[in-house]
């Protein structure tokens, strides 16, 4: 029915110019520098392996992190924590991210990043304050350059963009790293945050730990994309996907991402394919939505074992060091156990201290009322 004029048929279309998207797209397969058993793969031209002493330190903190995580789960069973979202299995991501940063860089963690926070050197008791329930944030975020653990999903993506832009605006070369999960990428705030960072060329690394589930919801319900890393190009943001259980690759890719951001090239998006070995939190029943086989299959890619194998094979780790690290981890856990033993006391009147810099007259009134109630209670009790 359509008739095409002859002149047209004769012409041929000009060759397309190189696709501007190419440099932004991730590799079509996960970057991997170790095989699942921990044997090294061929050198990757874009991702040189980090120095071995850094990898040993990565190993050390991963072991400590895992021990901390187990301890926190145990504390939950003993009723010392209200709730605990374990990150067991994600040690490479959580610790790798911290090692890719300077101490004066900023971290934007979620509720799941307890291991990242301990790897950052934050007192584990302060890390657990939120989950123990004595206050919302236990550490000093300004001093630790670590935002309070974020619960409203993906909202931190925008904060990271703002912080990074603010730092750059003030002439500082700070990088911000925002952690998020696979589920959180579906939220509008992820979109807005990455886009703001891209438009303002803010030095942010968006680090998606794709642990395959958002509570019970599998990745296939979050996205139809070939992989989450393909979201970057839509913002003009270079992206990469990495085997999140390969500690060497995670650190290598994040090193590049951080360097990119620090050099003023704007944000970088990294997706790490990993797995949450435990339920979403201790309150979750993972048997309802995934089977033991799946969990077991990831056990074979354990990031701690993998790194240990690699370092041993390279002669960078021996029984003595492994034992020393294990002992350190035990000590760390024992200290935590000890210090978490007693329920902390919190003065109810502090509820009024930080709503505003100065309490409003209404809060002054309410404070007086609560004070009177407490006094009456004590009298009643006394």
């Amino acid at each position, binding site marked *: 029915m359509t008739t095409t004029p002859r002149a047209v048929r004769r012409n041929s279309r000009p060759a397309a110019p190189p696709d501007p998207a190419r440099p932004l797209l991730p590799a079509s397969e996960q970057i991997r520098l170790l095989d699942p058993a921990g044997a090294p793969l061929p050198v990757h031209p874009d991702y040189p392996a980090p120095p071995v002493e850094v990898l040993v330190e990565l190993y050390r903190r991963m072991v400590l992190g895992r021990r901390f995580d187990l301890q926190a789960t145990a504390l939950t069973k003993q009723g010392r924590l*209200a*709730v605990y979202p374990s990150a067991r299995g994600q040690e490479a991501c959580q610790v790798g991210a911290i090692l890719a940063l300077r101490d004066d860089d900023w971290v934007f963690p979620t*509720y799941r990043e307890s291991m990242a926070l301990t790897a950052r050197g934050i007192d584990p008791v302060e890390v657990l304050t*939120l*989950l*123990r*329930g*004595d*206050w*919302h944030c236990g550490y000093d975020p300004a001093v630790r350059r670590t935002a309070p653990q974020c*619960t*409203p*999903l993906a909202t931190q993506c925008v904060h990271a963009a703002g912080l990074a832009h603010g730092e750059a605006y003030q002439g500082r070369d700070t990088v911000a790293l925002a952690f998020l999960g696979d*589920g*959180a990428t*579906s*939220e*509008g*705030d992820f979109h807005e945050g990455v886009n703001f960072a891209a438009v303002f060329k803010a030095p942010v690394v968006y680090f998606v730990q794709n642990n395959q589930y*958002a*509570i*019970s*919801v599998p990745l296939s*319900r*979050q*996205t139809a994309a070939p992989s989450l890393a393909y979201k970057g190009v839509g913002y003009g943001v270079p992206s990469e996907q990495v085997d999140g259980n390969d500690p060497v690759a995670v650190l290598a890719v994040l090193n590049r991402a951080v360097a990119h951001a620090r050099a003023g090239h704007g944000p970088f998006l990294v997706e790490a394919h990993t797995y949450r070995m435990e339920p979403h939190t201790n309150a*979750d*029943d993972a048997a*309802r*939505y995934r089977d033991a086989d799946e969990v077991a299959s990831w056990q074979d890619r354990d990031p701690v074992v993998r790194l240990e194998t690699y370092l041993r094979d390279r002669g960078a780790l021996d029984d003595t060091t492994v034992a020393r690290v294990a002992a350190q981890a035990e000590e760390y856990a024992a200290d935590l156990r000890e210090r978490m033993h007693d*329920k*902390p006391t*919190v003065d*109810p009147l*502090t*509820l*009024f201290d930080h*709503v505003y810099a100065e309490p*409003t007259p*209404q*809060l002054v009134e*309410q404070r007086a009322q*609560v004070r009177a*109630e407490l006094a009456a209670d004590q009298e009643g009790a006394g």
Partner: protein
Amino acid sequence: MASMTMAKALNTALADAMLDDDRVVVFGEDVGQLGGVFRITDGLAARFGDKRCFDTPLAEAGIVGFAVGLAMSGLRPVVEMQFDAFGYPAFEQIASHVAKLRNRTRGALTAPIVIRIPYAGGIGGVEHHCDSSEAYYAHTPGLKVVTPATVADAYSLLRSAIDDPDPVVFLEPKKLYFASAETQLPARTEPFGRAVVRHQGTDATLVAYGPAVPVALAAAEAAQAEGWNLEVVDVRTIVPFDDDTIAASVRKTGRCVVVHEAQGFAGVGAEIAARVQERCFHSLHAPVLRVAGLDIPYPAPMLEHTHLPSVDRVLDAVARLQWDDQPDERWVAA
């Protein structure tokens, strides 16, 4: 009659509604195979198929906006916001679309959507998991706002909500999910727009809703020891609001305390107090007082008991109802 939890009553209401009406679809985060973090949708996907009860991507504006579209296609979406503060990302969709669709289109398109929200505190939840967000919705014309305090109401009000031709924000008091009562389902209680006297009394009226109702009832119980005979009214549906039942009670008792968990300032309690004094001015022997959450962000678990209205705090308010006061002399002179 069997003993049944509110959670089970809600779950049964959803199942019965799906059975009765093919158009009902249930979706949200983790509501499918997991059955919801509070198990309110437990078994629905298995029973009705994963096309009628399904998980969505993790995005609340998406969930609510998707419901708007589904409603436009003729379905009856029932969606879950996983926790109160996680309804906030959907606020624009709720306030600018769900609430207004009928009005914008003169009734040509409607949004018979139920937005279920586990809300309020008392369960030791971490921040952002315990907000009482009813005032935001109650202040938004076009929404109905409902919150059950009993197991039978949980079932019946949810059925009514799903049947309702208008959008309903259905607020489920988390701390009552596992409270149980002897209940025979399918129970049908009073319709929307009717408050219910849960405890008869003569000396003062306690007006409460949702999680505050058990507190008010406990206070009424405790007050008996102090010689006060308190009436307790359960608001049930904040919008539409039942002025008649509440005003009748206050006209009878002459005194009124409103109790809710949400921070007091510009809360629903203010509306109730304002309405009561407008309608019952000459019957009031004392100002209408409010016992509400403090005007602070919801506290960490270890401090929530200080924040929440307690029996003691309610009794303190009752004690302040000027039992001995003389009226203003200008009154007497008038």
